[in-house]
């Protein structure tokens, strides 16, 4: 091939464009870094499901049990309690952080309450927690993908990425999320050293004990609930978990909003 000035300039021009475009495209290609393929794996004891769900049997609940469940969960996950803060001036009931807690029937099921409600609901508190919705509005609202839907149905938070904008709190119709208005550590009396705390300016909520499922344990609430709380695979038709749903009439919170909660209440 004979080289002349014109050809050289053409090639040089294309090369210059290429050299300019490469860094620009790779700048956009910056993503999250994962452990290289083959170097990361699940624990062999991991508990897996196609879609995790929760069934709560309100017949087995008492107020005392509800408090026990809530306390156990909060201890496990280093959830601060305003009462633990030494300086009383720093306590603020509006700063309360909750993962699972008891709520009156009329507050838990705002669209199902009635004037003449069954008597039993006067004496119990309904455990409310993140519903791990199939169509989670919090995930849609999160601008940083800190909140995300895992394939197995758990709506999880990557606390590292949360910028504290609280869009998710506005989006969640169940009030399942709490914001750390201050450093949570003074509110933690005894730390679970296996689990991190959060920092000021981060939203938090129930994670369905993803860290326990990953090592083959059941969620804390299930373990201390004396059979009132069960988790299982919603899509495994032959499981005991699905049998619970087949044998009992269950309701979900604010179903009309279309977020498709995965927490079912036997009433």
């Amino acid at each position: 091939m004979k080289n002349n000035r014109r050809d050289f300039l053409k090639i040089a021009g294309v090369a210059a464009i290429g050299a300019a475009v490469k860094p620009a495209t790779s700048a956009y290609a910056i993503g999250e870094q994962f452990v290289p393929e083959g170097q990361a794996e699940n624990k062999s004891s991991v508990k897996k499901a196609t879609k995790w769900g929760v069934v709560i049997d309100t017949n087995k609940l008492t107020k005392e049990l509800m408090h026990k469940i809530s306390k156990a969960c909060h201890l496990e996950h280093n959830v601060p309690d305003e009462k633990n803060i030494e300086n009383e001036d720093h306590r603020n009931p509006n700063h309360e952080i909750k993962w699972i807690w008891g709520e009156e029937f009329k507050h838990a099921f705002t669209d199902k309450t009635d004037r003449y409600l069954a008597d039993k609901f006067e004496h119990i508190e309904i455990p409310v927690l993140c519903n791990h919705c199939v169509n989670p509005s919090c995930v849609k609202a999160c601008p940083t993908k800190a909140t995300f839907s895992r394939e197995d149905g758990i709506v999880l938070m990557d606390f590292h990425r949360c910028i504290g904008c609280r869009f998710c709190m506005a989006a969640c119709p169940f009030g399942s999320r709490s914001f750390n208005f201050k450093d949570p550590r003074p509110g933690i009396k005894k730390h679970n050293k296996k689990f991190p705390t959060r920092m000021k300016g981060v939203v938090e909520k129930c994670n369905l004990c993803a860290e326990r499922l990953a090592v083959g344990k059941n969620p804390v609430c299930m373990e201390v609930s004396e059979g009132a709380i069960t988790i299982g695979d919603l899509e495994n038709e032959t499981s005991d978990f699905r049998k619970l749903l087949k044998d009992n009439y269950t309701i979900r919170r604010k179903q009309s909003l279309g977020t498709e909660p995965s927490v079912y209440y036997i009433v």
Partner: protein
Amino acid sequence: MNDKIKIIAGLIIFVAICLSPFFMGLGSDSNKGPDPVISETAKKKGKCILEKTEMAKQHMVILDQWRNSVVRDAQRVYTTKDGKRFDMSLSNTCLDCHDNKKEFCDRCHDYASVTPYCWDCHINPKEVK
């Protein structure tokens, strides 16, 4: 041109003053760099997940990868190049061996004037009740 000597002398003094910090530092050990201590527990355990020099360069990238794999994929077991397995956990794996955060992590970070926010959330088991 009669001021040639004065100018040169002035320049020499000026350069000497500018370079004086370097000369004065020559004899002292004020700039010998950070000196992280490998704890006894870590020494006993032998090898980290990578060579020492690689760890110094790479640990922040690896921790970043670990957090994504654990949080997003629930993959918690890390296999090193030579086939050893580790739990991916800062508080429970790294700090298990390197149980002297002050002399190990902080020493380098202070020297390099970096303040990683790991510890805002992740617990140093020795520091909490």
